[in-house]
């Protein structure tokens, strides 16, 4: 029996390899199978739209930045890694001021207080848009389970990367920004 199986070893190997090739050919990706027309907080999908107001009552929505890559951060003033990474976001926004890329940091206001948010913005001298998620609806649409969470969205509105947790160092923001701007 063992001799018989031993003689079949090479034919079985060849059969497995040919079956593998046939399956690869048969399972080619059909046209239009990519899911990026759907909205979801996941790499490869369209970023969920939002329209929120800032501390000075200005409307800020993702649609305002159509055609531009966006780094979208969710934060709260009480969250230590948010505090640790915010100077890097501010520095990156200054470095990228002459590019199309926009940094937006949505405050999870439903879990924060407006006074603390105001103080935080002053303390870190933040100059990029800070929309306020008063009801928590944006955090819900983006499936934010933990703060900070950052989404990297390309110029077509597709999420290309998600980083849950932090702090994100400046070097990583520069690399991600460079990729978003060159894609």
């Amino acid at each position: 029996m063992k001799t018989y199986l031993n003689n079949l070893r090479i034919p079985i190997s060849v059969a497995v390899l040919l079956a593998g090739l046939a399956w690869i050919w048969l399972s080619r990706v059909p046209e239009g199978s990519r899911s990026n027309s759907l909205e979801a907080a996941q790499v490869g999908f369209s970023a969920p739209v939002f329209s929120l107001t800032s501390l000075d009552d200005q409307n800020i929505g993702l649609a305002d930045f159509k055609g531009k890559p966006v780094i979208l951060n969710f934060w709260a003033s009480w969250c230590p890694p948010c505090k640790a990474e915010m100077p890097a976001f501010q520095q990156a926004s200054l470095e990228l001021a002459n590019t199309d890329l926009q940094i937006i940091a949505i405050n999870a206001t439903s879990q924060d207080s407006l006074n603390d948010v105001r103080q935080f913005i002053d303390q870190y001298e933040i100059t990029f848009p800070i929309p306020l998620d008063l009801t928590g609806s944006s955090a819900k649409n983006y499936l934010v389970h933990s703060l900070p969470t950052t989404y990297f969205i390309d110029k077509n509105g597709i999420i290309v990367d998600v980083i849950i947790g932090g702090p994100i160092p400046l070097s990583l923001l520069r690399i991600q920004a460079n990729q978003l701007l060159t894609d």
Partner: protein
Amino acid sequence: MFPVINLGPLSIPAPAFILIIGYMAGSFLLDKKAASFSMDSETIDRVLWIGTISALIGGRLSFIASSPAAFKGDILSVLSLNPALLDPSGGLVIGITAVIVVITRQKIDYWMFLDSLTPFLGALIPAYFLSRFASGNGYGFATNLPWGIYLWGAIRHPVQLYLTFTALIPLAIILVYTPIKNLLPGSTFFLFSAATSSYLIFFSAFQVPGSNTTNGIRIDQILYWVILFVTLFLYNFRIKTTPDMVHHEIK
């Protein structure tokens, strides 16, 4: 999908947590099964640690080397605990290189080493697929099948669960049947590798691909097929060129 486990004030990233559990389970099984492959568990543990540390340091160095200018004025971030600053493929290459150097220097038998590594890989690989499921990555195409799961706006094939459950089969075989008597050293690893690459070729077909396709053909599947080809070639070649042991096997 459960990317974060919230325990009171603690937010634990579930994918990383599952991978660590898989690594620890793998190390435990490796220790337990080392003697079955005529290997010293302490030696293997040491090699594994050197490989892991080298992979982590190498992954970070490789990431820095890919964009050194980004670290200008932010040099301390090379020590950041953020895993996004790791290059997985660079880390893997450096980790494997370090392991090859160590086992060559310590004159450890390559084939027996590979065999003794299979319980570790057998536990780590299903943990990896489960961690992908937890993160929501590697999701499947939409399906009408009753076991489809709602994810990213559609009922989808739970591809990472297919892979997790399938990966448990080689692990169970390793745990129950090793050491397989009269099997040529290296064969356990080759058979494990062939099984893993085969089911990856099969189940990848149900997964929505990223941008890594050419004319509709998934590059991932081609890579798994190449691994399968190399594995089967080496396995057959080794049996053919080791006549004494083959003779022993078919006696």
